[in-house]
């Protein structure tokens, strides 16, 4: 355990007979935590930007009377305002959170996402945009470092591509997840198949799509690379895809954090902070 992590010795056994596996190299750990912080800022500043025009459309332009999704506030028959989320022809009362919420100090304000969810907390599109674009660059640079390192170190393949036996036992992995039972010992040295596929979709699908859909909204990029906006079916479609992808990333983070909690918070956190992950007591060694 005290030994410095060396590539040729990614595993060690301590005096108590516990097996330790050097699971996460430094670059991966740094990229992970930077990514977590950057995504949080991007999400909250993104909600700030969304609040400036809280409606989504499909196609090139906005059809103002007929949005695909809208977060608004309206006056009910009793004269009281309420927050409403409208998706197509369905609407949902979301008073208190979406459309109508309380600002710091308790005053009711009409805004799509509430103050606690946006950066800045106040309605301030200009500053929200500045946060968003600066951190978008950090996301891209951090992502590029991660991908290049992962590609050349072999970490990306090892982490994201399921092995043959894992694909064959896909059903078994589903069952393990449903029972919240997770691999131990040598099996824990690699991610399980569902884990690998989820990370694969996130790293090579959702996050790049997020960046591309963001760029597709830029009038400058649209002039330079018109095919990019076309790829998403127009600027307003790109905006909607950007929003949906953000929702999927939030969903990923929620499930990810829950699974970290139920599959051993301390071991997982230690792994992502120090790199070392416990594989449990080695029976043969203990004997």
């Amino acid at each position, binding site marked *: 355990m005290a030994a410095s992590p060396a590539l040729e010795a990614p595993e060690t056994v301590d005096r108590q007979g516990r097996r330790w596996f050097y699971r996460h190299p430094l670059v991966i750990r740094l990229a992970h935590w930077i990514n977590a912080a950057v995504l949080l800022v991007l999400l909250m500043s993104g909600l700030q930007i969304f609040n400036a025009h809280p409606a989504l459309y499909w196609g090139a*332009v906005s059809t103002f009377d007929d949005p695909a999704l809208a977060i608004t506030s309206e006056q009910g028959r009793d004269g009281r305002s309420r927050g409403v989320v409208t998706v197509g022809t369905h609407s949902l009362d979301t008073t208190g959170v979406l459309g109508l919420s309380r600002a710091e100090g308790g005053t009711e304000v009409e805004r799509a996402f509430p103050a606690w969810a946006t950066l800045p907390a106040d309605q301030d*599109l200009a500053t929200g945009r500045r946060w968003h674009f600066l951190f978008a*660059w950090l996301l891209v640079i951090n992502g590029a470092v991660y991908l290049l390192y992962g590609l050349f170190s072999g970490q990306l393949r090892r982490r994201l591509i399921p092995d043959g036996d894992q694909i064959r036992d896909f059903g078994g992995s589903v069952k393990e997840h449903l029972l919240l039972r997770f691999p131990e010992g040598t099996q824990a040295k690699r991610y399980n198949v569902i884990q690998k596929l989820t990370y694969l979709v996130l790293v090579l699908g959702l996050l790049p799509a997020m960046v591309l859909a963001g760029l597709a909204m830029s009038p400058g990029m649209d002039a330079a690379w018109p095919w990019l906006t076309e790829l998403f079916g127009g600027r307003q479609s790109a905006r909607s895809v950007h929003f949906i992808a953000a929702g999927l990333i939030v969903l990923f983070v929620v499930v990810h954090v829950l699974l970290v909690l139920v599959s051993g918070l301390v071991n997982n956190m230690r792994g992502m902070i120090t790199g070392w992950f416990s594989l449990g007591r080695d029976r043969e060694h203990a004997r």
Partner: protein
Amino acid sequence: MILHRRKLLTGGAGLMGTALLGGCDRFAGTETGRRTLQVGEDANLYVQRLLMSPATLAREFPAAMISPWFKPNGTIDPPDRAYRALAAQKFAAFRLTVDGLVETPLSLSLADLRALPSRTQITRHDCVEGWSCIGQWAGVPLAEVLKRAGLKPQARYVVFHCADTLEYAGSQDGAFLRPGHPGAVREAYVQLAAAEDWGGAPAATDAPKDDWGQGSADSEAEDKRTPIRYYESIDLYDAVNPQTILAYDLNGKPLPVSNGAPLRLRVERQLGYKQAKYVMRVELVESLAGIGQGGGGYWEDRGYEWYAGI
């Protein structure tokens, strides 16, 4: 147990979020914070210009894609008496001033502008708020106007001085009139129109003698406050682009007042707030330092990016 953990988790995340928010907002309020956040804009400008040339055109669309309603935004009915006097006479007395770092200052009527070479383009207008509309614009390429005025070698930026007052310097009414973001202006004016009677057609019959953008001669004689009228700027990179036009027609008809009559800028590779409406004066300058608070435009001086390509 899981429930307990979940509670801890949400509580913890909430606390962290609040701390982060407060910290971020404080950071953004400092000079260092402001400068740091500006790095993203510089990177966007640099990289986008690597990917395009001055002549790269924004996408043009078929006539069938023109939006049935082109959402007017920002000022939709300038409150200024001088402007209203011009509008009442269908802009017959309108003159566009071209001055600053030019060899030959120009004063052009609408007829003069329409006699110059024209360009018609169907483009998408992207508001900073997120919405888009497609419209057909016709106007004179800015490059044609600049060619006739002749640029002095020091000229770097083109500044557009507009007719519409957005607020009054240092006044409480300014706060009332001042919109929070480009799209909120309309609502502010609706409120204002309800609160104050603008008196319909202006009483003044003589042509306005307002030197637009200099702020020294307020046409509203009874109002001693200094109006802050809309202003914008672009650099020569965008000024010489063929699609950068001073538009006088929208969808085949003279520009309506709500969309910037009689003349508005179209700079198609950037966002809506760069498309200055009610343009009265085109000034060539070497630096933006002397314009407004130095940001290069009304919204730029209120925190928005000067480079609005994203």
